[in-house]
């Protein structure tokens, strides 16, 4: 039987917008996603953190029906997703990692196309285009062909386009990859303000800082598997609070093998450090340390 109307999935008072169970994706030789189980709550910013090739993008591609899973189940707002499911597609907005705008079209025409694809009436199309181009600071470039845009402008336009049909769930695949630090902060502010308006966000990133500063909860992925899940604070507490970093450059000056030691508090770290002659850094632990602890290598490696 076909389910009608808005389906709500209520478990212990929490509303899950995305439910993923046993998700697998096998490409010929590679298992890109390996038995992934994950739920995303309505209203949160959830981050999938991991190195390139960890399977994050594949998860987003499956959730947005661009790729088909080889196993497992995905529910969005209680409904099974499929390429033909127009109801779910109206609820989600997608910002891909790769720029996928029509570069020969102007910013306004790109918005217009999206509005038509989502069957917004002409008046609403024009109003939303104006409002959203304002929101992402592109009003003055509305009539410019996208091929003349900078990377940051394209990313902002892609976000504006994804918001055109007022989705309640937004997928952002590496939203700030390749952008300047200043532009990156602008995009973060944009994502936070969307979340404040009630939009649930699932993003992927390989930037530690992005996951830590922006996300309410983080899932760490490596080689297709989810290896840790929790709030950034919870995850960091698992490894310890204070890190002593000792760059091992005494002999050659070139060896970049850095030694990491994790301590429960500053006192212990200082006691250890005071006995050393080496150059060292004492800092609070971050999600990178969590990743190193779990996998033995750094996110960037």
């Amino acid at each position, binding site marked *: 039987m076909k389910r009608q109307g808005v389906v709500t999935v209520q478990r212990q008072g929490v509303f899950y917008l995305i439910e993923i169970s046993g998700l697998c994706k096998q490409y010929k030789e590679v298992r890109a996603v390996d038995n992934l189980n994950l739920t995303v709550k309505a209203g949160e910013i959830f981050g999938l953190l991991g190195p390139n090739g960890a399977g994050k993008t594949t998860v987003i*591609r499956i959730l*947005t029906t*661009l790729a088909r899973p080889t196993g497992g189940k995905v529910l969005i707002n209680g409904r099974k997703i499929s390429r033909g499911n127009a109801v779910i597609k109206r609820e989600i907005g997608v910002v*891909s990692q790769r720029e996928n705008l*029509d570069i020969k*079209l102007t910013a306004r025409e790109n918005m217009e196309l999206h509005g038509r*694809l989502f*069957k917004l009436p002409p008046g609403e199309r024009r109003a939303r285009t104006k409002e959203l181009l304002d929101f992402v600071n592109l009003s003055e470039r509305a009539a410019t062909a996208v091929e003349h845009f900078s990377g940051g402008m394209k990313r902002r336009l892609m976000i504006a386009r994804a918001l055109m049909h007022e989705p309640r769930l937004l997928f952002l695949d590496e939203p700030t990859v390749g952008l300047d630090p200043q532009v990156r902060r602008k995009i973060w502010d944009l994502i936070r303000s969307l979340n404040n308006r009630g939009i649930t966000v699932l993003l992927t990133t390989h930037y530690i800082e992005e996951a830590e500063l922006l996300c309410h909860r983080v899932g760490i992925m490596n080689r297709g598997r989810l290896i840790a899940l929790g709030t950034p604070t919870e995850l960091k507490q698992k490894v310890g609070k204070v890190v002593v970093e000792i760059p091992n450059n005494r002999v050659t000056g070139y060896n970049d093998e850095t030694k990491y030691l994790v301590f429960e508090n500053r006192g212990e770290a200082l006691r250890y450090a005071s006995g050393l002659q080496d150059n060292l850094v004492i800092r609070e632990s971050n999600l990178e340390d969590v990743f190193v602890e779990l996998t033995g290598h750094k996110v960037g490696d």
Partner: protein
Amino acid sequence: MLMELIYDTYTVFWREMILLRKKFRSFFAGSMVSPLLYLLSFGWGLGRNIQIDGTSYLNFVVPGIVALSAMNGSYSAAGTSLSVSRLYHKTLEEFLTAPISVLSLVLGNVSSGCFRGLFSSSLIILFSYFFGANLHLSGWFFVSLLLTCFLFAALGLVAAMVVNSHEGMSRFSTFVILPMTFLCGTFFKVENYPAAVATLVKILPLTHCSISLRAIAMRAEFPLVSLLILAAYAAVLFALGMWVTARVE
């Protein structure tokens, strides 16, 4: 349902037409080059004093050239635009994540390919009059032309959805489109081949495009069988296009 299909198909078509408008000059000039060369070399150069079936070679060859430019025009319009959008600009993602049916996506792309194919082949018909050709253009001529454009636009879509690179796309046209250009009764009668070769060539769709267009333009016997074969090709390729589009990643 039907209204939705029409609306979404038009959206896909609308975007292709905006793109076409933006590069209209180069499209217009580009789609004239090879047919003009064919008209010049085969119509005037080679065929000046040749008679075939009691008419000038020009009258004989023009329907073949029309079939050829309909094939090339619609195949490359649908194929190039889609493969670039899928592999390079990734704009196909925008359509795949939108709440439109696979049917409207395929229909929109095939009809815009069709439109461009019809446009370039109409130009040839127009030119051929300046070259002195005398064709009988009936409604059935345009039905054949439409079927030709439709089936090759669908073929272009299928190719664009299955290849994995631009090289793949050009290999596909080298092995599929290029042989048809010369083999399929465009410049000479298929009956000139030895029987076995003729049978093989009659499997290919462009053969039936040339046969139909030529028979109608020269007021010969109505090409019912060829038209049915064209319709079957169009239906099968369209269905195949739906199948690959529903599965493309």
